[in-house]
């Protein structure tokens, strides 16, 4: 199956995606972890959020080179994400999935894209560094402006309530109950 190629800024096209679709993403993304989210909530979003993609990542940067930039666990940002979607962000990128509350917030607006955890070198090989906000937060927590070249992703949560992680977890619970709690 050929992946669907997406490019930022993202438009309503993301509403056509379904959980489980394989996509590639090109264009600009902004990294953000816990600290960056907290500061953006206080000071405002330093980039144009309309159609933007936010990447849950604390990269290793050396000079102007991205050495390693794999995804971090998105669930840590479950309660810090609503304001970004309210402001027009169309895609969240990370690993491990997000809460049903975030799935609700994505409804009719955007998608959660999963990147293979631990694949820091593969991810870095598709990236060019363009700039930085909040550098005082330190390397892992700053917002890095990164240009992507066809980063391979899977739609984990779509804008219609479809949640691949949720479905898999539900099935796992069922299998567990069948085996051990009968």
């Amino acid at each position, binding site marked *: *199956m050929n992946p669907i190629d997406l490019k930022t800024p993202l438009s309503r096209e993301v509403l056509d995606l379904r959980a*489980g679709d*394989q996509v590639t993403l090109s264009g600009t993304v902004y990294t953000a972890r816990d600290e960056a989210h907290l500061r953006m909530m206080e000071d405002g979003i330093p980039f144009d959020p309309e159609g933007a993609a936010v990447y849950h990542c*604390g*990269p*290793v940067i050396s000079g102007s080179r991205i*050495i*390693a*930039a*794999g995804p971090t*666990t998105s*669930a840590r940002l479950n309660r810090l994400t609503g304001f970004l979607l309210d402001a027009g962000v169309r895609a969240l990128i990370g*690993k*491990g*999935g997000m809460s049903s509350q975030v799935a609700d917030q994505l409804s009719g607006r955007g998608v959660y894209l*999963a990147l*293979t*955890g*631990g*694949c*820091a*070198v*593969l991810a870095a*090989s598709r990236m060019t560094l363009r700039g930085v906000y909040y550098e005082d937060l330190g390397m*892992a927590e700053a917002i890095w402006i990164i240009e992507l070249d066809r980063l*391979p992703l*899977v739609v*984990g949560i779509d804008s219609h309530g479809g949640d*691949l*992680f949720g*479905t*898999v*977890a539900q*099935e*796992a*619970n069922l*299998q*567990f109950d069948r*085996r*051990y709690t009968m």
Partner: protein
Amino acid sequence: MEIIIEFISSLLMMLPPSGKEFLAAVSDATCRAIREAEIRLPPDVVAAIREAARNETSDIARQELGHILENIALAGHLGVPICQDTGVPVVYLTVPPAVPVTADLMEAVAEGVRKATREIPLRPNAVLPLERVNSGDNTGPGMPAVHIRPGRRLEITVLPKGAGAENMSRLAMLLPTEQDRIPLFVAETMLIAGGRPCPPVVLGVGIGGTFDGVAALAKEALLEPIDTMEPFEQELCDAVNALGIGPMGLGGKTTALAVKVKTASCHTASLPVAVNVQCWAARRATREVIW
């Protein structure tokens, strides 16, 4: 001829080592072991991931494992760490009779960790637990975590441990009559973990010993090659894979690449069980110190 050289070198190794050169050799071997572990996965782990990629039938699971294999190849080619979470240093030393276990020896291992952090470089991950102050060099009180056992040669084995998988590890003090609950506890550990520890995982399972010892057993089990499993290990592995969590929690046949078990005698009234979760980047490497 080789036998003679071997014999002479083994005689020399019986002399107690001394001085700065020996300690520098310990630091150097520690640093080299860390470099190897961070950049290249052991062949048995790569083979297990390849095998998993062949067995998966879903497009997504195959793609996830394909990304992992591509990432492993790229890291080796570029000589950079496989994952940005370069972990905290867990170190196993086998110490021959001629080597005294001293504070200097421990400090030499720590110096090797600092050197590796600077030179590879590694992400500084070690912080004080309550103050959350980062030492900047992956060392601190009790870090590196060093385990010592007697051996014939001075060998340094490192197991850099990332947090995503470590955080999903669990321990239970079962009743002696609850042996049949062991598979349940192992499977339940993975059920709770889901996609968070970056599956496909390797599970180190400790059974027996004491409350503290069983966790150490579980971690030591992760040092074992994963290309073979005993029937009980296979049974536990099958129980985990039946959950269908799959690579990265996106569904699939391979949730665990392997389960490895280590046991120790325990109190007749106890049955300690620990599960140490390891992500697919099951990093380990050994270097010998020659003096």
